[in-house]
């Protein structure tokens, strides 16, 4: 009897299971169940979860919503390209556009305040990767995902694109500035 030969006992399923095997199977099963329940538990007690909120939307309709926000709340522009920096009201809906090859507009948010960040793409798929805290979302054209977020530290954060989107992929950066109003 060997693993490359048919089992020597025809009725192999009656062969008693080795003690070491049953020990390990039970321990491993307990660990697997623990890992399984961690996920729903984190939805209840953890503070880093995705919502189920997302919508179908056409790129033009999404761009229009974003433009409306930019027109209302732009506080300054940056770089030679005059990229707008938007300071939206606390708690409001923010429409971030991903396109070849930019994240627009740049955002200025307040520390410890909660916002509803909307994400959608105008063209290909993109990856929202917030550095240096390293939080990542997939951005898909035709879909609008809503993420509520609460920045807890002031500073400059960079959005790197981490879904390959063509030759200029490596130039696709955006910014979120978190400002401390009290300080």
């Amino acid at each position, binding site marked *: 009897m060997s693993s490359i030969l*048919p089992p020597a006992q025809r009725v192999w399923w009656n062969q008693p299971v080795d003690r070491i095997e049953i020990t*390990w199977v039970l321990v491993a099963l307990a660990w697997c169940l623990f890992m399984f329940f961690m996920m729903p538990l984190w939805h209840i007690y953890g503070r880093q979860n995705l919502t189920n909120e997302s919508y179908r939307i056409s790129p033009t309709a999404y761009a229009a919503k974003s433009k409306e926000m930019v027109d209302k709340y732009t506080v300054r522009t940056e770089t030679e390209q005059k990229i707008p920096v938007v300071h939206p009201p606390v708690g409001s809906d923010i429409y971030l556009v991903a396109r070849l090859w930019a994240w627009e507009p740049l955002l200025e948010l307040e520390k410890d305040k909660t916002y509803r960040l909307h994400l959608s793409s105008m063209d290909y798929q993109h990856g929202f990767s917030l550095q240096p805290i390293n939080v990542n979302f997939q951005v898909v054209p035709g879909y609008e995902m809503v993420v509520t977020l609460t920045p807890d530290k002031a500073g400059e954060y960079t959005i790197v694109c981490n879904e390959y989107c063509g030759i200029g992929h490596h*130039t696709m*950066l955006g910014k979120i500035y978190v400002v401390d109003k009290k300080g």
Partner: protein
Amino acid sequence: MAINRIFRTDPISGLLFHQPAETLMKANAVAGVVALLVGGLLAIVVALTRWPAVHLAPADSFYQALTAHGIDMLIIWIIFFEMAILYFCSSTLLRSRLATPRIAWLGFALMVIGAITTNLAILKGDSSVMMTSYVPMPANPNFYLGLILFAVGALLGCFVFLGTLVIAKEERTYEGSIPLVTFGATTACIIAIFTIASGAIILIPTYLWSIGLISNIDPLMYRTIWWALGHSSQQINVSAHIAVWYAIAAIVFGATPMSEKVSRMAFLLYILFLQLASAHHILVDPGHTAEWRIFNTSYAMYLAVLASMVHGLTVPGSIEVAQRLKGFNKGLFEWLRKAPWGNPVFSGMFISLIGFGFLGGISGVVMGTEQINLIIHNTIYVPGHFHATVVIGTTLAFMSLTYFLIPVLFKRELILPRLAQWQPYLFGISMSVFSLVMMGAGTLGVARRHWDMAFTGAPLGYEYPATAYLLMGVVGITAVVAVVGGAAFILITVGSILFGKRLPQGSYGAPAPAPQAPMAVAIEGHGHVGIKGFSAPGTLVLAFTFLALFMAYYAINWKYLASVWHFG
């Protein structure tokens, strides 16, 4: 039409080879190694470009090389070799003639044509869309067409395998149940059929879209179904390379399964649950509910992870029992110390087992946890993980099996035996460091599939921490060492097949009427070895070490996640 019933009994191993099956195994293995060679050359371009101090290729060539590297390694090399394994596990292990060799050749031809078509499309330069080819980024229609042809060819191979199982049963070429290794191969075959069906469902419409017959492919639907191809195809590899581990344990040590029931149940769990794993890739996508994510990403409560943890115990456990029965029964680890570490068939398989479990397994489960995925998705951690599973796990296991097949199937003595002794260590250890530092760079936020971590030419800038640059430098260096290790493998195998000393092959003729035990002596029961009623205590210690590391790493990641901004 006469059926070819010409067999030979291999004088070294005692295995029975059916002539048409033997030729098919050789052809598929050789085609696989050719793809490995191409993919390995491309790996040099990819790795030297991601090494920040070298930054070799321009952006377009980098993405082109990366697309072809993914396709040639993850799909073409591995599936060709798996076809050889399917024919070996059915025809050879069941001592049966192969069903419909002509259809098997048709499948092989389709796979070759498909592989060349896709590679040419990438070479043309208008299909640098990565292996995943996410819509709506378009590729040349031939890119998809080649993949479809390759998949249809592989599907024919799966049917030949299943047909051979039927023939072997009909013609009573074996007694009782099929061997465990064949059972594992059957698992791989069933998952392969599911995988290829998913591939057809998504790639055929995408092909029609690329030639203008369909106006729109929904990108979210594409991702959801594509990953039923993309991840499940890696589950074929898992089933296949675990079958190879069991086979090598049997070949080198005459090992028997600790119990047939447990090992077969574990394979059955793969069939039932592994397919759900495609959810791992779309955890941070819009449109899926938390319930869906949790159920699917956990493979329904991690029952497929359980299966891998079981194999991770029973494979070394069966080796330990076999070694103890041979007299290496002292202490916890004499069986392991006295194992044939100079035999690349064993050393490669054991490094594959350890690397797959400790590096690939742990990182895979951790990053596939619904919320932890937030801090890992699409960073270079992901290729770090799958180089541990697919390169150390699958590729190294297949390399080890090849060292066994060269004398047995190709009837040649290995050339450069000293180099062959070192090759699994060179390749396995460099790939392990490579995977680890890649995961490290990923936790620092370095993106995968990214030409320039310095963002040259971007209107805005970002500076990764210096450690990330250091780690990416080590990625480059270890990749070069691993490519040297891979080149050594190709040199040894191709050199042996062409120039190795010919070995006696045994004469072709009708099969021996009565099946004989081809391998080591029959071993019955293992109640009298081991310590305190545990037949494989050393393996149990290794298993608990694994579990302790797993738990610690899992906890660290939750702790890190808890420290980032609040979401949701």
